[in-house]
C-alpha cells in the first residue's frame, strides 16, 4: 500500500521544512548577534552624526537649523524601526548626560515640529503594528519633536489606534499626553471609546497623569463626555479626576444618589468621596453600606466611611460589623478600631454578642499592635464615640 518512494518523499518534505526553519533561525540569530556586537560602534556613529549638526558650543535653543543633507539622512534611515531605536538611544545619551545636555536641547530645538516627523508618522502608519507602536513610544520619549499645536503628526498617531494592539494604543496615549495637546488626547480617547477598545482603567489614568497641559482643565473636558462615552471610559475618567481634582464633589452627588447609575461608576465615586471628604455625602454613604441589593457598593461604602469619623459613622459601623459579608465586617472592623485609636479608647466597641465580629476586631487589633485583652466585656460600658 505504501510506496517506499512516496513515504521517503513525504518525510523529506517535512524534514526540508524543519531544516529550512532551523537554518532561518540560525541566520537570524547570527544577524542579531552581529548587530549586538557592533552596537557600541552604531551608537557612536549616531552620536557623531548628531554632534556634526550641532556646533560647539551648541546654539541657543531654537536657533539651530539642520541642513538638508542631515535631514535627508534622517529621512532615509529613520523609516526603519531598528534605526529609530538606535537614534533614540543616541538622543537619550545626550538627554541624560548633563555635560552634553545642551547638545540635546539645541538639536531638539531644531527638530521641534519638523515636517520630517510628520512624514515618518505617515510612513510608520503602513508599518507593522509593533513598529507603529514603537514610533509612538519614540514620540513619547521625545515629545519635543511634535510641537504644541495640533498637527498632522498627532493626527497620524491617533490613526494608529485603528486596529491596534494594547501596546500601540497605550503608546499613542502616552505620546499625546506628553505632547500635552488636549484636543489630540480627547480625539484619541473618542476613538478608543467608539471602537470599544479595552484599556485597563488605572493604566490609562496613569498615562493621563503624564499630561503636560492643565490637568484640571483636562478633567473638566473629560467629564463633559459623560453621557457620550461608555461607562468603562467614564470610570477611567473618574479615576483620573480623583487623582487630580477635589472640585467635583457637587458634580458627582446626583450620580451617587441615583440608583440607576452604573455600579462601577458609583463605586469610583464612593472612592472619590473617601479621598475628598464631602459632608453631604455622609448619609448616602451610610445608606449605601446597608444596601442589600448591591453588596459591592456596600463594601466600598464601608471602606469609604473611614474618611467620616463621628458618632453617626460609629453607630453605623457597629451595625455593619455584624454583616454576613466578610469584607463588610473587615472594613467595619478596621474603621471602628481606627476610630478607637483616634480617641484613645476602645472599650466602647460593642461586638461581644457576635463571634464573627469579635474575631475580625481581634485580628484588626492585633494588626495594630493593640491589647486584645482590652476587648473583654466591661461591667459598665464607657461613653461611646463623640466627636
Amino acid at each position, binding site marked *: 500500500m505504501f510506496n517506499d518512494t512516496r*513515504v521517503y518523499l513525504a518525510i523529506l518534505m517535512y524534514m526540508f521544512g524543519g531544516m529550512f526553519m532551523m537554518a532561518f533561525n540560525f541566520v537570524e540569530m547570527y544577524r542579531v548577534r552581529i548587530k549586538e556586537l557592533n552596537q557600541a560602534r552604531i551608537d557612536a556613529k549616531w552620536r557623531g552624526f548628531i554632534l556634526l549638526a550641532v556646533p560647539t558650543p551648541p546654539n541657543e535653543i531654537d536657533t539651530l537649523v539642520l541642513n538638508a543633507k542631515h535631514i535627508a539622512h534622517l529621512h532615509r534611515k529613520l523609516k526603519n524601526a531598528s534605526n529609530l531605536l538606535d537614534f533614540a538611544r543616541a538622543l537619550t545619551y545626550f538627554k541624560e548626560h548633563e555635560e552634553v545636555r545642551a547638545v540635546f536641547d539645541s538639536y531638539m530645538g531644531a527638530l521641534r515640529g519638523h515636517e520630517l516627523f510628520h512624514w515618518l508618522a505617515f510612513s510608520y502608519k503602513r508599518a507593522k503594528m509593533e513598529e507603529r507602536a514603537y514610533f509612538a513610544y519614540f514620540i513619547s520619549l521625545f515629545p519635543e519633536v511634535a510641537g504644541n499645536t495640533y498637527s498632522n503628526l498627532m493626527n497620524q498617531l491617533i490613526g494608529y489606534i485603528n486596529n491596534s494592539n494594547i501596546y500601540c494604543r497605550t503608546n499613542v496615549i502616552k505620546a499625546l499626553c506628553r505632547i500635552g495637546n488636549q484636543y489630540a488626547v480627547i480625539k484619541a480617547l473618542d476613538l478608543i471609546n467608539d471602537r470599544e477598545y*479595552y484599556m485597563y482603567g488605572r493604566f490609562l489614568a496613569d498615562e493621563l497623569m503624564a499630561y503636560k497641559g492643565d490637568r484640571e482643565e483636562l478633567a473638566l473636558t473629560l467629564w463633559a463626555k459623560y453621557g457620550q462615552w461608555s461607562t468603562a471610559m467614564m470610570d477611567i475618567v473618574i479615576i483620573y479626576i480623583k487623582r487630580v481634582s477635589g472640585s467635583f464633589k457637587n458634580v458627582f452627588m446626583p450620580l451617587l444618589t441615583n440608583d440607576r447609575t452604573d455600579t462601577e461608576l458609583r463605586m469610583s465615586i464612593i472612592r472619590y468621596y473617601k479621598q475628598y471628604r464631602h459632608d453631604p455625602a455622609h448619609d448616602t454613604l451610610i445608606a449605601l453600606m446597608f444596601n442589600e441589593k448591591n453588596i459591592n457598593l456596600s463594601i466600598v461604602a464601608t471602606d469609604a466611611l473611614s474618611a467620616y469619623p463621628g458618632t453617626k459613622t460609629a453607630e453605623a459601623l457597629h451595625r455593619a460589623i455584624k454583616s454576613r459579608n466578610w469584607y463588610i465586617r473587615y472594613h467595619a472592623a478596621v474603621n471602628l478600631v481606627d476610630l478607637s485609636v483616634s480617641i484613645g479608647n476602645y472599650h466602647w466597641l460593642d461586638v461581644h454578642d457576635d463571634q464573627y465580629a469579635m474575631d475580625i476586631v481581634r*485580628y484588626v487589633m*492585633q494588626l495594630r499592635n493593640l491589647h486584645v485583652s482590652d476587648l473583654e466585656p466591661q461591667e459598665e460600658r464607657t461613653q461611646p464615640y463623640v466627636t
Partner: protein
Amino acid sequence: MLREIAQSFVYYASILFVIYLVVYATYSFLSTTVGAFILRYRDKMRKLSNEMHYVYVPISIILPAYNESVTILKSIESLLELDYHMYEIVVVDDGSKDDTAMHIINEYNMIRYDRPVRIQIKCQPVIEIYEAQLGHVKLTLIRKENGGKADALNMGINACRFPYFICMDADSHLQRDSLKKLIEPVLGDDKTVSVGGVVLLSQCVEFTNGMATSFNLPKNWLVSMQAVEYDRSFLGSRILMDMFNGNLIVSGAFGLFKKSIVINAGGYEAGSLGEDMEIVMRMHIYCQSNNIPYRMRYIPTAVCFTQAPTTVKDISTQRRRWHLGLFQSLITHRRVFLNYRFGPIGFISYAYYLFYELLSPYIELLGTAVIITAFYFGLLNFNFMVVFFALYAIYGSVLSLTIFTQHIYMQDFKLSTKDLMKAMLLCVLELVVFRWLLVYIRFMSLFGYKRKKHTWGEITRVKTE
C-alpha cells in the same frame, strides 16, 4: 490462515499508524513553526519596547509547601526581589512533617495572628496563621492540616486578598520581571481568566540580581535531556494551542488565575494529582456553560525556573504523577471530547492530550508489537523500517533543536559552541533514548491506579545557591 490474519492485522495497523504519525508530524511541524514565529515576534516586540512599563494589578502569590524546608527560603527570597508594584505572598504549609514553617517564621520574624479566613472553597482547617510586612510585600504563612497540593491552593485562594493569584511550586524561582510579563494579557484584555508562563530548568541557569543571566547545559545528562524535552513537548504545543484559546494546562509551577472565576468554578479538586490541568478544564467548562467570554493565555516571555529531577527514580515519580493527573483530568471531563459546544478544545486539544499524551505509550508499544508480528511472519521490510525511523528521528531532532535554540535566543542567553553541539546530540538522544524511558514510565503508571491514585510521591530537593 494465521499468516492471513497477521497480514490483515499488520495492514490495518499500519494504516492507523501512518495516520497517527502524519497527524503527529504535522502537529509538531505546526507547533514548532508557530512557536518559533511567536517567539521571534515577542522578541521583536520586546526590543521595540512594546511592553507595559508599569502596572497596578495587585497579585497574590500562593506558594503551597509540603516538606520543603530545603528550598522554601530561597523561593521566598526570589519572590521578595520581584520588580512589581503591588503583591503579597501567601505560603501554605500543608501539614509538613519537617520544619518548613519554623524556617520561615524564624527567618522573617513572623508574628502569629488570630486571623479569620473567609472560606469560599472547602479545604482542610487552619492550624495557625503568621504574618509579616516585608517592605511593600505582605508575607502570610498559613499552617493547615495536610490535604494535598490542591487543598493547599484552595486555602491560599481563601486567604489571599487580591483579585488575581499566581500558583507556584515551592521549589520554583521567578525572574525579577516575571510578574510584569505574566500580567500583560490581563491589561490587554479584561476577558483573560488565566495566564500560563514558561517553566525552565533552574539547573541550566545562573542568576544575577534576580535575572537569569547565563545558560549552560548541566553535566547531568538526565537534566539536560529534560531541558530539551521541555521545549519540544510543552513550549511549541502550548503556543499553538494558545492561538485558539485551547490550552488545557496552565503549569502548576507558574500560572496566573482570576480568583472569582476559580472560586465560581469550585476551586481546585482536592485529591487530584493533576490539579493544574483539572482546574483549567473546569474553568473552560464553567465559562462555556455560563456563556462567559474568556481567554486563557500562554505567555512565552514570562519565565519561571524549577528544579528538574536528577535521578531516574525521581523522574519516574514525577512523570507517573503527571500521567495519572492527565488520566484523572481527561476522565473527569470526558464530556468535552468531540463535543461541538467546546469547539477546538474538544476536537483538537482534548484529542491531542488523549491520543498523543495519555494513550501514546500504549500506542507506541502496540506499534512495537506490530513490528514484531510483521517480522515474525516475514512481512517486515527491514531496510525501509530502519531508514524510516532514522529519518523520523532526524526530523524530530531538527524540530526540537529549532524550538530549543529559538527559545534560548529569545531569553537573551548565549549558547556556547560546546553547548550547541551538546544540544544537537541531546535532541537525538532525547528522541531515541529518553523518550523510551518516558514511554515505559507512563506505560506503567496506570497499573495499580486504585492503589496509587492519591499518592503524590516525593522528589529529592537540592539546595541552590
